């Protein structure tokens, strides 16, 4: 049901691991890397307060002390440059932002410095830095606290971008990000924090650039990004009730992007639906559709569709907010239309679909 990725211990027990929440997987990954490598440190607004970034930095201050786990002033621009400088000097900073929207304050450092340093200095330095950032949950967070802006970073050579959708990948990708010699934008989603999956106790790495096939089906390929991977799985369940079988693919890593896995599936199903937790215009979904559309060898014609945020600013009122986001019901409906274009009547049970993100998700493994 899933393609193996990462140097997971072979034994079944270890591979299965315990059930762990996404939020705890983040904290565990960082703790294990801090233990292993003295150069790793964690900083950012509020990483050391009692809320610990919704729990995702829990335990770090106690174990590693204020020298390696510290808050900052509200100075995103300078604090990003600070991390870049420390990384150039050989340290391994993990900079934490409680909302991805705040990265707009440090775009200059991320785009003009971090992404480019290795290249424009001819390889003389590297920037092994991780930028953890959380996409806000939908509940009334509004215009400036809920954006998924990953495509801006995918656009710029020199940055890696990952967006794990489950606790297993969260741990494996975060460890990989910390060990990576390049700047990595690590995209989290608030709604994933409480979700559980089996996660090995030992440190392990999920390699970037390998998509994960989370579910198999021959009628339709659905690619889900970040938490939309989970919503797509739910949509696939709804579609199954209508007799439609969907491949559900989670790219996990957005830059580098494993487009081959997606192409392979889409060539088999002839239909590709890409669902992002972001706007579609020039988004990750545009890139994925474009790459599949321009594949050199074409054994089969493919129909495409994208879903993402409504092309509007995010409203706070729940009446509109629910229309702003894709949900399993709407994803399923679009998938259905793609497979059976003539038959426009099917609508999935709205009650089952609506609450999807409150349903405890038990991981793809």
């Amino acid at each position, binding site marked *: 049901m899933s393609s193996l990725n990462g140097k997971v211990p072979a034994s079944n027990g270890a591979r299965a691991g315990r059930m762990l929440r996404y939020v705890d997987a983040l904290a565990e990954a960082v703790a294990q890397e801090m233990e292993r490598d003295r150069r790793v440190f964690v900083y950012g607004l509020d990483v050391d307060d009692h809320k610990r970034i919704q729990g995702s930095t829990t335990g770090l201050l106690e174990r590693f002390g204020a020298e390696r786990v510290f*808050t900052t002033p509200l100075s995103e*621009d300078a604090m990003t440059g600070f991390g870049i400088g420390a990384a150039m000097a050989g340290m391994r900073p993990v900079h934490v932002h409680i909302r991805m929207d705040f990265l707009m304050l440090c775009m200059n450092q991320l785009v003009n410095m971090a992404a480019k340093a290795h290249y424009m200095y001819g390889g003389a330095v590297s920037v092994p830095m991780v930028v953890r950032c959380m996409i806000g949950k939908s509940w009334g967070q509004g215009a*400036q606290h809920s954006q998924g802006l990953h495509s801006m970073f995918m656009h710029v050579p020199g940055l890696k971008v990952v967006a794990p959708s489950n606790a297993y990948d969260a741990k494996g990708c975060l460890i990989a990000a910390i060990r990576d010699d390049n700047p990595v934008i690590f995209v989290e989603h608030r709604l994933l924090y409480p979700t559980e999956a089996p996660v090995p106790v030992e440190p392990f790495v999920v390699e970037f650039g390998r998509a994960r096939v989370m579910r198999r089906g021959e009628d339709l390929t659905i690619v889900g990004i970040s938490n939309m991977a989970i919503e797509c799985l739910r949509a696939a369940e709804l579609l199954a009730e209508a007799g439609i079988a969907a491949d559900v693919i989670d790219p996990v890593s957005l830059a580098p992007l494993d487009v081959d896995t997606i192409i392979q599936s889409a060539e088999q199903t002839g239909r590709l639906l890409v669902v992002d937790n972001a706007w579609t215009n020039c988004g990750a979904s545009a890139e994925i559709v474009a790459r599949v559309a321009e594949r050199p060898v074409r054994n089969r014609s493919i129909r495409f569709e994208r879903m993402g945020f409504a*092309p*509007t600013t995010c409203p706070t009122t729940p009446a509109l907010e629910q229309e*702003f986001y894709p949900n399993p019901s709407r994803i399923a409906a679009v998938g259905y239309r793609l497979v059976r274009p003539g038959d426009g009547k099917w609508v999935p049970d709205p009650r089952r679909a609506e609450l999807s993100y409150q349903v405890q998700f038990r991981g793809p493994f």
Partner: protein
Amino acid sequence: MPDGALRADAETLERLYRKLYLTRRFEEVVADIYPTDKIKSPVHLSIGQEAVAVGVCDALRADDVVSGTYRGHAAYLAKDGDANAMMAELFGKDSGCARGKGGSMHLVDIAHGVLGSSAVVGSTVPIAMGYAFALQREGRGRVVAAFFGDGATEEGVLWESLNFAALHKLPILFVCENNGYAIHEPIEKRWAVRDLIAKVAAFGLPASRIDGSDVVAIRAAAASAVAPMRRGAHGPSFMECTTYRWREHVGPNADFDAGYRSRAELEPWAAADAVTRVGAMIGAAARQTIESEVDRQVRDAVAFAEQSSMPASIELKTHVFA
């Protein structure tokens, strides 16, 4: 906090009390409603900090302009923003001041001179400055007061703005509501130097530090700061108002059990509370009238919000472009 003389004529005190009580009452009611989930969006209460906005706004004209933050209820109400539209906004209703699209963090009431507030710390400061530039060009003596927290002073944009406002002598009063914390982080972990006023003065702005519980002192300081601005090219001023947040950073509750600050820290601020003190200074009859009028105003706002309808689906797509 000093002894707090609070000397002012009765009329002024009553006017101030009405605003103080309104702000306090409004937020208490919001806090009461919050657990019902009728307000589905984060709220950052000003409870304990009301005197700053009330004092400053009482020194402003109706056609002056204020700009606030996500902790902006007090500034909105103190500047006579429409209370019904505000409550409806919190409820996500179509009759809200931002048509339900903004919520508590994005209040706006242009008719009453309330610029839209923002959830990104520091981001409204340069916008307020640009507005002040337009008012300067207009030449009708209007001014802008820009409110922001102590945390905003760590954002580079604040210093860029102070420099530019001073360079172009813009009619803007910068008001820092220093409540000692950014979320749960105390100033010691964020500022190398505690003397904010010295930093600002070095940037070329008259700057003063004022007890944020002393609503009369704040009013006086704001009045004397804006008077020369109205007359011409005097340039900006800066006030640091020391104050204290009584509730949790976001949400309706107290959080003295969370561990990052003690309840003892609250005590002197509670003792200096402007609402209580000003309330005690005005006549009992006047006070009762004000309170019952304001109570009704807030009840009406809740009723208005309750009775208003949610925006229709089609509203999702409106207002993307003007």
